Structure formats: C-alpha cells, structure tokens
C-alpha cells in the first residue's frame, strides 16, 4: 500500500452514452497541493464527487487512507434566513474542536468578528472564509475545495487564495482544489492537473502551459497569456492560429 491519502484508479463514468470520465487516475499524497482545471463540462465536479464518494463510478477504484479526515469547502452556501443560526454554531455543528483551536482558526481565516452574526447575513467573501474555517477545524488530513472562489470578485479571489496558501504552508495538510481561476492557478508553483474527460496533462504551471493538449484545450492565446505569469520575457504573438476543436464550453 502506498502512502497516498486518496487515490482514484482508472475511473470511468458514462452518462447517457457520454464518457464523462474516461480512465482517470489521480493520486493525492501527503502535502500535495493539486489544482484541477478544465473547461466547463470536462468532468471536474464528477471526479470530485467520485473522490468524495458522493457518486459511484461505473468502473475503477477509489481508495482512501483509513480514517482519512476530509475538510470540504463547497462552491457556495446560501443560508436561508428561516433558520436562525450563528456563525459560531455553524462552525461547531458536528465538529469536535477545542475553544483554543477554534480561536486560532478564527484568527487565521479572519472570521473572529463574524462569530456572532447570523449565517444568513454574510457576504459572499465572508461566507467562503467561514466555510474555509469550518473545513480547517478538527485538523483534517485533506482539504477538498470545489471552485471556492467562483462567486468572488478578483480581489476577493486573490485574498482567498492567499489565505489558502497560508493555511497550506502552516500545517501538515494536502489540498485538492477545483478551480476556474486560471490566472490565479497559473501564477502559483503548485501542481496543476488539466482534465477534459481524461487527464490531458499535469505538472507545474510552466510545464502545463507548453503542453500541446493544454494549448488545444484552452486555445493558444490563453496558453500564452497563462505562461506570461512565468515567462514574461517570452512574447511571440502569433495570430494565424486556427483551431478546429469542438470543445463544449457550455
């Protein structure tokens, strides 16, 4: 047995005759920070659902380290005002955490001022911070985030990713994140996995942006724009590209 926390081996999911996931394998080891990217409809959410065991793949195997503790940050949470619940009560629902741990995480995620607020009045950015705080409670081994900054503006995204980086470097934890924010992902040095029903390419951003599959998936302009984050000297504009790829971006 390897020391992987969570791994997917040869996962296949077919729905209505479409291959959503085609022989996908992904391994998350200790202290990995893996970002999953890909166009809409590429199967990112499905892969996440399979990994979290929300969905049973048609074939393939999901393996989990025994007693793996997962902290999950969903894309969004819309708290209805019909339920009166404070941030503090929400954070402590089903979570065993000492007051000291809670205090530390509140400070780290900048949510200390929110604890007595009703959950239903939080702004989008505040809610994502609270969700991150909740995921970090009770010392998880793995953090799984599903487009966590999707509904934030650009400065909100920047702040969220900074906070996540800080949380990562501060503890012994692995992270698996689905993200649409290519500009943020590509400016980091973490491992990126590009998915389009199968795994197109994976590696550090500077490697990914040169990969032919990445270029064909996101287009040459996008690939160049992304690689700028690492090779700002490398400016060869080529406007004669012609792509025939029929990727569904809907």
């Amino acid at each position, binding site marked *: 047995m390897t020391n992987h926390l969570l791994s997917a081996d040869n996962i296949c999911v077919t729905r209505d005759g479409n291959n959503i996931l085609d022989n996908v394998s992904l391994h998350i080891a200790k202290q990995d920070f893996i970002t999953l990217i890909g166009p809409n409809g590429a199967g990112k959410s499905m892969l996440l659902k399979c990994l*979290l065991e*929300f969905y049973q793949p048609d074939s393939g195997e999901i393996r989990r380290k025994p007693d793996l503790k*997962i902290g*999950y940050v*969903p894309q969004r*949470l819309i*708290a*209805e005002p*019909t*339920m*009166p*619940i*404070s941030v503090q*009560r*929400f954070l402590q*629902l*089903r979570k065993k955490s000492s007051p000291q741990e809670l205090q530390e995480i509140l400070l780290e995620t900048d949510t200390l001022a929110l604890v007595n607020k*009703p*959950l239903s009045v939080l702004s989008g950015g505040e809610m994502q911070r609270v*969700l991150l705080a909740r995921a970090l409670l009770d010392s998880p081994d793995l953090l*799984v985030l599903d487009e966590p900054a999707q509904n934030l503006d650009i400065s909100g995204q920047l702040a969220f990713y900074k906070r996540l980086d800080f949380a990562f470097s501060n503890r012994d934890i692995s992270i698996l994140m689905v993200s649409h924010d290519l500009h943020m992902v590509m400016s980091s040095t973490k491992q990126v996995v590009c998915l389009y029903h199968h795994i197109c390419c994976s590696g550090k951003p500077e490697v990914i942006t040169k990969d032919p599959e990445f270029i064909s998936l996101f287009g040459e302009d996008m690939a160049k724009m992304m690689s700028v984050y690492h090779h700002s000297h490398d400016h060869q504009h080529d406007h004669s590209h012609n792509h025939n790829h029929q990727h569904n971006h809907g």
Partner: protein
Amino acid sequence: MDLLIEFDSFLLRSLFAGMAVALVAGVLGCFVVWRRMAYFGDSLAHSALLGVALGLLWGIDINLSTLLLCSLFAILLVWLQQRRLLATDTLLGIMAHGALSLGMVAISLLNKPSFDINRYLFGDILTVSSNDLLWIVVGGAAVLATLALCWSSLVLMTLHEDLAKAESVNILLMQILLMTMMTVVVAISIRVVGILLITSLLIIPAATARLLANSPERMAIISALLGMVSVILGLLFSLWLDTPTGPSIVASATLLFALIAPVLLRKH
C-alpha cells in the same frame, strides 16, 4: 362527585394528549419550515383519511392503518419523485387530493351512520381514548428521541447537503427518518387537530418561534412551548365558548403569531 372526577380525568387526558402532540409537532415543525416541507406534510395528512377509511373497513386500529397508509404514501411519493416526470408539487397535489377523495368516497360507501367525518377532518381531542394516548406517547417519544440523536446532522444537511455528505452524514437515512417522523406526527395529530389542520400545528408555532429565536435549538424549544400554550388556550376557548377544539387550538396558535409577528417584524 363521580361525574366531576370523570370530567377531570377525561379533560386531563385530552390536555395531556394535545400538549404531547404539540410538543413533538413544534420541534419537527422547525424542519418543516426550514426544509419547505409544508405541502408535503399537508399531502401526507390528506392521505390519512384513506387510512382511516381502510381501518374502518378492515376493522383494524385506525392509528395503525393511518400510519401504514401514510408510510406507503410517502414511499410512493419518493419513488415518483425520483422518476422526475412531474414536479413535486404536481405529484403532491394529485396524491393528496386523490387520497382525500378516495377516503371520503370509501367512508360514505361504508355507510356507518354513527361515523362523524368532522372528528377526523377537524380533530376531536375530547374523545381521545387511552389507546390513542398510548400511540401519542410512544410515537411522540420515538420522534423526539430520533430528533435529539440526529439533530446536528439534520441541521447540517438542511444547510448544505454536500457539506453534510462530505462529513459522512448518511443523507438517505436522514431523509427516510425525516419522512418517517412526519408520518408518525401526522398519524398522532389527527385526533387533536384533524386532517385538515395538521400542517398548521407544524408550521404556525415554528414560524412564530423563528421571530423569537437566535439558534436552531431555541427555535425548536420555543416552537414546542408555543404549540403547548396554543393547546391550553384552544381547550379553554373550546370549553368556554363551546367551539370545536381542533380549530380553536389552531386559532390560538394563529392568534399568538399575529400578536408576536408585528412587534418583532418592526424591530428587524
């Protein structure tokens, strides 16, 4: 003298039955409000009349036949829902009114002159038997114990299903439990407020409690208390003015809501 003791014991029994039902309905009612299950509860209650009819037809305990039919109804509904052919409210509408009508037709075909349909439509708390009381106590205690055990899982699931799933809450089990609890509460509430008014016992105290509470637990406790106060007030009104008890209880709950809501809404 004997008459007075008799009077006291039947009144106490009614009061106890009513308060026990209000306690359980008040707590479960919070989930009905949070999860928008009011129409589901109403449909379940309507289907109960068919259960009453079948109980009379087969000569079995009406509490039992109601419970069985409501469970069957809930299972059928979930099964149809998963087919996704029709919207849930359409399905509920078909099944609720279908079951209510079938129940009415079946009862009229039974042709029992002594049968008073109003007792089932609007409740008749003053005729609660000790057998009914047993159903209320056992069913109510089971529902309360389930709620207490699964409370935080149910609250988390209500806030965000995937979050609860990721934290290994068994969603399917929780949904089945919620449905079963609704079925039990509907079955035991029929005697107190009747088929047509069960939903109000679930949602009115909970809605009033929402205005007064700042945590899910407090909302549940306040809702239960308001429900019990409504039962006491309703019984008193009904004795004093000789009005039907079920509607008097619901009218009291509504009165409490009407008194509390404007004061607190202004503050918000």
